[in-house]
């Protein structure tokens, strides 16, 4: 099993969600995060005092998938989240040793 983690622009969340549903992904987890990459932060000015805000708001999407689906899910996310400008984010895939469904106790692929 694999965990696909994506950091994307917040306004792309809906596109990514819809795209993942169309390829049969049954569940995902979303969290609001902050960070910086090449995009860096932005400046804000209050009563003439300029502040550098280093972190940019992003959305993190996590999807558990079977090994065979990982590459396709990854491509679907990239396709849906890309704008072509700086700050589009990243997607990465990690191996997952085991998964348990809390309600039934099912393990492994059955729990996805």
């Amino acid at each position, binding site marked *: 099993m694999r965990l696909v983690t994506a950091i994307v622009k917040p306004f792309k969340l809906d596109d990514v969600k819809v795209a993942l549903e169309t390829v049969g992904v049954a569940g995902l987890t979303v969290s609001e995060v902050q960070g910086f990459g090449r995009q860096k932060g932005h400046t*804000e*000015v*209050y*009563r*003439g*005092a*300029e*502040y550098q*805000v280093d972190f940019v708001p992003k959305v993190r999407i996590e999807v558990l998938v079977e090994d065979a689906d990982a590459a396709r899910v990854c491509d679907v996310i990239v396709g849906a989240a890309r704008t072509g400008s700086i700050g589009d984010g990243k997607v990465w895939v990690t191996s997952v040793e085991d998964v348990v469904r809390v309600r039934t106790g099912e393990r492994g692929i059955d729990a996805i």
Partner: protein
Amino acid sequence: MVNTGDTAWILTSASLVLLMTPGLALFYGGMVRAKSVLNMMMMSFGALAVISVLWVLYGYSLAFGDDVGAGLLGSPTQYLGLAGLMEDTTSEAGGLPTMAFVGFQAVFAIITVALISGAIADRAKFGAWMVFAGVWATIVYFPIAHWVFDFTLTDDDGVVTHVGGWVANNLAAIDFAGGTAVHINAGAAGLALAIVLGKRRGFGRDLVRPHNLPLVMIGAGLLWFGWFGFNAGSAVAANNTASVAWVNTLVATGAASLGWLLVEKLRDGHATSLGAASGVVAGLVAITPSCAAVSPVGAILLGAVAGGLCALAVGLKYRFGYDDSLDVVGVHLVGGLVGTLGVGFLATAAAPAGVDGLFYGGGVDQLWRQAVGAFAVLITSFVLTYIIGLVIQKTMGFRVDEEDEMEGIDNAVHAESAYDFTSLGGGGGSLGATRSAAATASASTRGATA
């Protein structure tokens, strides 16, 4: 027979001015960080509590009692506890009940004290602030209100029936609603306190952006609304003077907001909401002393200058290294000076005050009176406030611990948090705080005996 129109307007104005202090609490509260908004607002509410009591006990007497010498102070005993004022003697001649005037002036004292709190955001002990509020009102505000607001009265035969303060009568400076007594006074006091308390940790380095700009804008709106009572009410009658003051208070404020936004757009590239709200207050401050002395067009000019200058003045604290956190100096001291000195330039005899300033052919006669009044109040307030602040700092301590300041003064000083952002805990849920054992025990005891 009481003048019912005047009385109704003054009681209404007094209520409007009272609302300015909670409005100020919102204006200031939105500008600080989420961890100190309650303390910021509590300093305004604390001023409401302390000053309303002191005003009745002896404040009114110090400000509006018969002068005890040189126009410096009213008799502290004449109206002690408002003695003798419940009986209505003044309104028999078609006037205003004295109690209406007592109430109207009380709310001026309250807001003036509350204004100072913006200079020491995030770091003052609440108890020390409350002591400061009472002492400062007693030693600084009540006497200066006597200087500026207490007019000498004569009866129909020209016999003096009441002797007032020196700025209003001997100097004859024009301060219609408190450019000196309220704004220069609070601004100079804010500067002194900011110096006594010192900078916040990370001043000029850390991100200390406002946590809630909508609160700031609601606060500015309430201040503007209340300020119509402040300025138009200062006519102490429902008449033409009040109406001129009302219109000038509208238009100078709009012009000041425009002036501030213009400076921002040209300098920083963006017109900000904080700038619009700050410009509103700067304009209100500048038109306060001048609203019965200038024409509406003069008010536009005065407001625009005040908005632009204050927008530049708020940067001074970084250059000179004093942490006037919410710009009491940049807005109230500078705006108060613009308005008070502006009378000397822009006053026109066509306005109710009936005096020509420099630009209307009146020469510098009124200008020097304005300057003497403004700087007398500025210096007196700064020196006395510095001493009061230092004494409190050396005795009971004025500043909270570094740890409390970093973690948030709301929790450290008031044992409260302004906002509960999480549904998981913090508000008594399973992951966060639970009711303390002692509190739970006493609750169940009460339940058993009830």
